[in-house]
């Protein structure tokens, strides 16, 4: 999908270049993450646009072996779907899981939530109840403190949608 270069994308890229290249991955400047207003997180967009906006095309590795994404295989009520993400990664001040995003591909607002963790958590685990509009893949995207992105996804079958009109 052709999309004009937005100010956000341009600034994000410039910032990332400024910080430098870490292990072949462009590190995201910490300041940019902090400035992301929460309201900017939830937009009406396709999941591709959303992922492009948030991650600016940074490479994502398959994290199926590391990320434990727990979702119900069938959700009778899409209004309340418990999702939990656990990452088998150390939580030390030098290496920890910084952010966990929960993404529901077919929701009108696909980027559901972002959890920012500190090493004090001791374990990279978060859970939340989310809405799903229809049967969809649910993804977890994990950003580690060195900027590595890992992702995994699982499908949830929804019998009654929860996102309304």
């Amino acid at each position: 999908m052709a999309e004009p270069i937005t100010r956000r994308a341009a600034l994000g890229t410039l910032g990332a270049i400024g910080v430098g290249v870490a292990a072949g991955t462009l590190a995201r400047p910490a300041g940019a993450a902090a400035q992301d207003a929460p309201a900017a997180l939830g937009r009406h967009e396709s999941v591709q646009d959303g992922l492009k906006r948030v991650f600016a095309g940074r490479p994502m590795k398959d994290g199926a072996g590391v990320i434990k994404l727990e979702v119900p295989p069938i959700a009778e009520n899409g209004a309340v779907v418990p999702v939990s993400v656990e990452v088998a990664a150390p939580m030390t001040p030098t290496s920890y899981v910084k952010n966990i995003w929960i993404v529901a591909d077919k929701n009108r607002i696909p980027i559901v939530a972002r959890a920012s963790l500190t090493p004090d958590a001791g374990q990279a685990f978060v859970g939340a109840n989310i809405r799903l509009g229809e049967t969809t893949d649910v993804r977890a995207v994990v950003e580690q403190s060195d900027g590595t992105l890992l992702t995994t996804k699982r499908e949830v079958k929804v019998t009654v949608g929860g996102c309304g009109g």
Partner: protein
Amino acid sequence: MNDIGKIRIRVPSSVKPGDVVRVRCLVIHPMERIERDAQGKIVDRNYNYITRVTATYLGKPVVAFDLTQSVSENPAFSFALKATAPGPVKVTFVDTHGGKYEGAADIAFA
């Protein structure tokens, strides 16, 4: 809707120093979802939903959630923390209408 902002936080009852414990919390909140008019256009108004949740333990941040309207009504969250000393876990919710709700629970060693 007088119950908005009621918070329940559950921590395990028997905790040993150094344990990684899981804390669950729940807040009563409508988390209004997007409405559409007859033409299918989005009704533009300030929807009341929680945008940010922060949790601290012993005054230090443990986790912060940024939320959207894709999160359920009366949202529930869980997270982990490493219990190093007895003390309070505080959770703060902020919504788009300026509401700020706080809840706390104590980690106590058995």
